[in-house]
């Protein structure tokens, strides 16, 4: 991950010059072939948009999981308010529309040959490659934490088995226990989601184990929609949620899964349930492709989403450095569609148009209590910048508005999942 960017750039510069001439002969025979790696909100939206924009384009979606489990609304599963089946979606509809869905893990990417290798040994050539690998955990940044540790101290930051594990641990906890949530610094997947999780866990505890508490150990001082969250916590849960912020020594520096200990800069904690959300970086595949820089994330051209480090590879969703755009399902979906439009133009030899993206983020603090943030983003120089027209729910608002936003949140989920997988 720390290979010097400059050297990589130089190598790519040379190979790109040669590949420009050779494969164009091959490409002349068809209208193009796009491989999309990763079937989450970004990749699935991109694959579908590519096929819909151009019927005769060959679109291949590579995703190892046959069933996708959505992170948005998975905090409700943790709180026992929702069945995990409501979070799960398949790829049949994409297949029916003509997207070739391959259930394999990607092992290697050869940018020079423009080829993706899957675990079963098949090489898939591409004209354009889209990577939507989501996040991976940066275990080196949190000593003591790894895949084995996540069995005892679940992160539940990739939805599925981890979500259910955290749920079971909460169910098994006795009344009077403490649930700790360790929150990493930004950039990370869905910045407000840890606080939504704290809210919904508090809701579960309040209704079933009212002597328990939620302890947030935070590597940040301030966070998205903080005033809305803090007001909701006071209104709904009194002093059940305690937060130790960065400047109060809240940053977690290591963990010990054998004793379920969370170590911060100034203290040790032994909670009954430890939800440790580790620091993150772009999904593994992005590193394999050489698309990540020293930050662990992928710098992109904001107009085309093409990697600044590897030609003909586009990176969308949580893995890319989106500037002002928060890493969210909504943003990934918008990026997937914009990237598809750019690729269609590039393959046809037309200039891509600068996209205007909208990202929306709903938070549920309790059943019937929601609020939201919406933002508009446009390329500005090297990155995406937030532009006018965004809005956040008012801090002082009647409960009817919170109830309406909770309903809208559910509708948003139905819309985006139908739009992507339905």
């Amino acid at each position: 991950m720390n290979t010097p960017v400059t050297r990589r750039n130089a190598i790519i510069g040379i190979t790109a010059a040669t590949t420009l001439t050779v494969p164009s002969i091959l490409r002349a025979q068809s209208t193009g072939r796009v491989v999309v790696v990763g079937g989450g909100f970004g990749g699935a939206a991109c694959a579908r948009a590519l096929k819909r924009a151009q019927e005769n384009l060959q679109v291949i979606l590579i995703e190892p999981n046959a069933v996708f489990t959505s992170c948005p609304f998975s905090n409700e599963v943790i709180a026992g308010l929702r069945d995990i089946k409501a979070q799960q979606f398949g790829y049949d509809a994409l297949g029916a529309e003509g997207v070739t869905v391959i259930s394999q893990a990607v092992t290697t990417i050869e940018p020079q040959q423009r080829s993706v290798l899957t675990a079963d040994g098949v090489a898939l050539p591409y004209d354009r490659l889209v990577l939507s690998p989501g996040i991976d955990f940066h275990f080196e940044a949190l000593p003591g934490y790894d895949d084995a540790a996540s069995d005892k101290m679940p992160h539940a930051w990739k939805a599925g088995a981890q979500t259910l594990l955290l749920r079971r641990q909460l169910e098994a906890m006795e009344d009077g226990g403490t649930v700790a949530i360790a929150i990493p610094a930004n950039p990370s997947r869905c910045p407000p989601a840890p606080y939504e999780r704290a809210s919904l866990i508090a809701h579960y505890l309040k209704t079933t184990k009212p002597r328990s508490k939620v302890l947030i150990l935070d590597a940040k001082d301030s966070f998205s929609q903080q005033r809305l969250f803090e007001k909701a916590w006071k209104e709904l849960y009194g002093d059940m949620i305690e937060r130790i912020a960065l400047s109060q020594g809240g940053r977690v520096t290591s963990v010990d899964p054998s004793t379920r200990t969370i170590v911060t800069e100034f203290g040790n904690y032994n909670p009954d349930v430890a939800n440790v959300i580790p620091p993150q970086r772009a999904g593994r595949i992005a590193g394999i492709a050489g698309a990540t820089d020293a930050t662990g994330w992928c710098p992109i051209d904001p107009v085309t989403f093409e990697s600044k480090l590897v030609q003909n590879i586009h990176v969308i969703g949580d893995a890319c450095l989106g500037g002002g755009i928060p890493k969210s399902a909504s943003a990934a979906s918008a990026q997937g569609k914009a990237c598809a439009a750019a690729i269609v133009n590039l393959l046809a030899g037309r200039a891509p148009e600068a996209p205007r993206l909208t990202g929306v983020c709903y938070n549920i603090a309790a059943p019937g209590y929601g609020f939201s943030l919406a933002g508009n983003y446009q390329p500005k120089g090297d990155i995406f910048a937030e532009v006018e027209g965004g809005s956040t729910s008012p801090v002082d608002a009647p409960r009817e508005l919170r109830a309406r936003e909770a309903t809208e949140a559910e509708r948003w989920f139905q819309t985006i999942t139908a739009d992507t997988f339905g």
Partner: protein
Amino acid sequence: MAALINVPAKAKRGDIIEIRTLTSHIMETGFRHTADGALVPRDIITSFTCRYNGTEVFRADLFPAIAANPYLSFFTVAKESGKFEFEWIGDNGYSSSASASITVE
């Protein structure tokens, strides 16, 4: 919260130990203006000292560019059992202190 101190409770003689301190302070730079144009006067911590059984082992001068709630981490050698004393001094007569004990074996 006045100050947070992290000194290992025990160490072997000759060990290099890490000491962490964090104190709450607004660290007002003196460069900001209020909405009606008045200058917000400077209010910062200007110096920090750590003494180990009376001997100064670490000192830092702080300036307006340092963020609120200054967090300092530094190293020293564990020589003998005893006490670390920490002192923060700043504008407007600000003074704050804390201490922590260590057992050296």
